């Protein structure tokens, strides 16, 4: 009897929460439906959730092959996000390894140093970063954005938390067998850390893909633009053509949705890991 009552209340709450989640997702549903419509139908009220007349082919052709070419932004975004992610993985996992498995004086000092840098907001050092990039001759290049986002103390800490949990005996046993740290790092630590490395990679990829501030400041030429910056061009070139803008928005979000839905456990657990222990 009690179980039935419990399940009843659970069902009622599920229905209520289901309705709430639909309301919550309406902006995205509206975005997808607008991408299928003719310009004049987008703002018609009441909203046609399933459009009568479909113009999706034209919309996508205009966005992807038109005068503001989305495929170029796509290519740029993929290039920057993939390179940045790989370099971040290398730098952060090397630091995390040194901070947990190599015993030397100064280790804790470095750790505290990194910890204190975490409170410095990126935005407070925007001006000198910009000047550094100009002096290095990197202004208006993708290298500038990669350089700005490839160092990540946050991920170093995430990896450090994970590596602390790996028994030191693995390392000690390998040391006795005569293996050096480079070998231990590559052939023991990296394979053991695969799950957390995958999580870091996915989150870093999503964040770099979505970054707006760095491309806005460091890129000048349209053909170097990333997707978020490209969205600005659509806004300027297709003012009030919300069908085109929503098609661009859908195109910007699709790769993220695919990555997320395929790997949601890693993403959600990774975010939770940072929140609970970081």
């Amino acid at each position, binding site marked *: 009897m009690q179980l039935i009552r419990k399940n009843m209340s659970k069902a009622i709450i599920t229905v209520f929460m289901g309705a709430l*989640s639909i309301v919550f997702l309406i902006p995205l549903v509206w975005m997808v439906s607008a991408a299928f419509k003719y310009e004049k139908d987008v703002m018609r009220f009441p909203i046609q959730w399933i459009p009568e007349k479909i113009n999706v082919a034209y919309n996508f052709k205009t966005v992807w092959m038109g005068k503001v070419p989305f495929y170029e932004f796509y290519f740029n975004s993929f290039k920057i996000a993939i390179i940045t992610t790989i370099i971040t993985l290398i730098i952060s996992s090397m630091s995390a390894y040194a901070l947990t498995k190599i015993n030397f004086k100064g280790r804790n000092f470095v750790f505290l140093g990194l910890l204190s840098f975490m409170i410095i907001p990126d935005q407070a050092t925007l001006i000198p970063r910009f000047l550094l990039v100009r002096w290095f001759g990197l202004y208006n290049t993708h290298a500038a954005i990669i350089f700005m986002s490839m160092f990540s103390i946050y991920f170093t800490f995430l990896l450090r938390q994970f590596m602390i949990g790996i028994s030191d005996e693995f390392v000690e046993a390998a040391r006795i067998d005569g293996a050096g740290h480079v070998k231990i790092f590559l052939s023991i630590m990296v394979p053991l850390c695969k799950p957390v490395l995958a999580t870091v990679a996915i989150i870093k990829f999503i964040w770099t893909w979505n970054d707006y501030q760095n491309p806005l400041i460091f890129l000048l030429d349209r053909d170097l633009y990333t997707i*978020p910056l490209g969205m600005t061009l659509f806004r300027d070139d297709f003012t009030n053509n919300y069908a085109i803008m929503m098609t661009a928005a859908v195109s910007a979000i699709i790769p993220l*949705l695919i990555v997320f839905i395929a790997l949601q456990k890693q993403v959600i657990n990774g975010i939770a890991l940072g929140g609970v222990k970081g």
Partner: protein
Amino acid sequence: MEVVKQPVPDIQREPRKKFWTPHRKEALIGWLFLTPEIIGMLFLNVFALGFSLYLSLSKWDLLTGVKGIEFTGFDNYVKLFHDPTIIQAVKNNLIYMILTVPIPIAIALVLAVLIQNSVFFKDYFKVAFFIPYISSIIAVAAVWSALFHPSLGPINQFLMDIGISNPPKWLVDPKTSLLSIAIISSWASLGYTIIIYMAGLTNISNEMYEAADIDGAGPLKKFFSITIPMLRPTTFFLLITMLIGSFKVFDVIAYLTEGGPNNSSMVLVYRIYEEGFVYHNMGYASTISWLLFGIIGIITALTWKMRNED
């Protein structure tokens, strides 16, 4: 003479022979592993902060080149405290903080508890609320700019439909622009807050709830006397990161309002951007950066103090 001769060669030879002791080798390798990260931090944080401090005490139009840097002492700081747009920006940042921190935290807490304990298809709800967080914030901002359109937008058409003849003009009205930005960012980040709370909930042992059941405590009583107190570390973490985060808001404002209309959505980071990259006043932009850094430092210190006093 004899006494001196004997020990000296020993002392001199020993360190040369054994310079690369296992300890030192270990240390060298440790530092080598840390080198890339340390170089990055030296450039992007240590040097950057020092240089920014120097610039904040200078007047410099970027276009005049490095030679144009003119040391002016505290002039910029004096200007800062008399600059009406800065005062407006700080005020807006504080309002934005109040709008985007406590309310979303409370909503996320309730939703997280419901998803964790009281629904079927838990995984669906986790994903549904999380999707806006992983979506590109600029794409999402583009969607909301259409939804918030003052006359044609679906939101206002709906409001007019249910009899509100003068719905708010959202992003284009000074009275509601900041609120609109706050709604968009809160909507986008709610999933993150829920996930963090759900992770916190899994750390509360079931025994406490079972004991409360035996005492005959209802769900509300359990929520207020077990869940909320046990989640205090999670709430603290969210509070500190979201308070700091609210002072860093930039993307949505840069894309949608550029601080307008009439500075009604002007915030400090947008002001740094505008002063530095639109007007090329690198000195004054650095001064604003230090104001931002100072405010974030104060918030961090206050919240830490709050936690330690608990």
